[in-house]
């Protein structure tokens, strides 16, 4: 495996509280790593550390000069700002022309959104624009923090499918936070689960056992309720 990212003994504290402790894993080029865990487990914190936004202890080693794309969660973005979609693309590292913007948008089936205003887009459209914005910089790895709710399941499946295709075509490595276990089972080459002190890493088939899910989310599995009625409770995963 040709690693694009090596993490050794990573620990992150937020406001004096340990959020991630002693986490180690490796990501190969072209892999799709899905991070799962309940709310507040430190998934977004992990991504922010991987992007170098926050201080951490331990070692995070990206392949030298690796270009990273980042799609923040909707809540971390000011959606009121009357920014035209094409203006967002003008703010990126490279100044894209109109044609390149159209191309980036059509990558995620959103051609025609360029002249719309970000504050008038639906949650799904908004997220696709953020993905297109990240992809326009031709990243080698994309870190995608999926929002917990708000987005229709059908559209979401399409986006994962599309990202998977782009990943294959361009050798893009994907790191995603996901709340939908169906998506995780279908697309992940590696699953990373986080919940306070507890963590596990492995292939989805090997580690996504009912026992693990109970350990991760507790007995109530209230977590599944906001996956929009998709049957993803531990029993229906059909594996013991």
């Amino acid at each position, binding site marked *: 495996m040709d690693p694009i990212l090596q993490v050794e003994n990573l620990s992150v504290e937020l*406001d004096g509280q340990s959020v991630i402790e002693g986490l180690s894993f490796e990501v190969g080029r072209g892999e799709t790593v899905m991070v799962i865990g309940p709310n507040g487990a430190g998934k977004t914190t992990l991504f*922010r550390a991987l*992007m*170098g*936004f926050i201080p951490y202890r331990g070692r995070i080693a990206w392949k030298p000069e690796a270009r*990273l*794309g*980042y799609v*923040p969660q909707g809540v*971390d*973005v*000011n959606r*009121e*700002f*009357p*920014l*035209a979609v094409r*203006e*967002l693309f003008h*703010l*990126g*590292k490279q100044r894209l022309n109109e044609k390149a913007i159209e191309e980036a948008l059509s990558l995620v089936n959103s051609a025609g959104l360029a002249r719309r*205003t970000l504050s*008038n887009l639906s949650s799904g459209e908004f997220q696709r624009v*953020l993905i297109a*914005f*990240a992809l326009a*910089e031709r990243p080698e790895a994309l870190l995608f923090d999926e929002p917990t709710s708000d987005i229709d399941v059908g559209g979401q499946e399409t986006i994962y499918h599309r990202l998977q295709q782009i990943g294959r075509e361009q050798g893009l490595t994907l790191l995603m936070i996901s709340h939908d276990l169906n998506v995780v089972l279908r697309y992940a080459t590696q699953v990373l689960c986080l919940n306070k002190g507890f963590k596990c890493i492995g292939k989805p088939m090997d580690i996504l056992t009912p026992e693990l899910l109970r350990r991760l989310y507790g007995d109530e599995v209230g977590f599944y309720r906001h996956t929009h009625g998709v049957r993803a409770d531990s029993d229906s995963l059909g594996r013991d």
Partner: protein
Amino acid sequence: MFAWVLVSGILAAAAIGYLGVFVIFKRVALAGDALSHVALPGIALALALRVDVLWGALPVLLLAAVIVYFVSKSAHLYEDAIIGILFSLSLAIGVLFINLENLEAALFGDILHLGAGEMTVTILLSLIILLSVWALHRPLTLTCFSSDLARANGVKVERTNLFFFVLLALAVGLGVKVVGTLLVGSLVIIPSSAAANLARSLKSLTALSIGFAALSTALGLLVAHAFRLLPGPMIVIFEGVLFLLTLTGKLARQRAR
């Protein structure tokens, strides 16, 4: 002479209107207001030292900008409360030390009585602010939009925020001369809020905000000059009218949809 007053006022308002775009979308409107009141003790100091009030207001404002920056950076402090405290404390100290004959000018501005030197400084500073915001508009916009997205695109978010507050302090210093410490907060917030009612892009938001600020300042100054009224309140009233008009337009558009 009045023509130069108009030019200085309009340029200062334009600079403040441009920054106002980022103030309302960074959700630091209160910080802008607090800054304006901090100018008052500075003005008191300048009056005591018999120098132009701008030289008293600016250092105090810059100091306050740095304080506001650190407060806004720290997640542990009650940001709103601290800014509120800074705000009322400065007002209290300022009012205590400024004598009555100067108080009106300090609170409501005295742009109609600017000297030639003060006008030159106002015009130059306005141009510097306008150019700086223009030069920084990429990092400023990205930071307003999402600080993590800005960082992912190589923006030094902390540095951008510090620059932003320093520019805001300079702009507020100018605004104090135009509409006074009590009303300069409205100069920051109203034109950009009115623009946001209509704008569908950053370009139109910026153009409208600068345009509204300049227009209401021009109208306010002309009316105040003609009828011997205080220009500061007149300017703010015109801004308020523009805001109500744009709000009506926005609501009508929403209903039509």
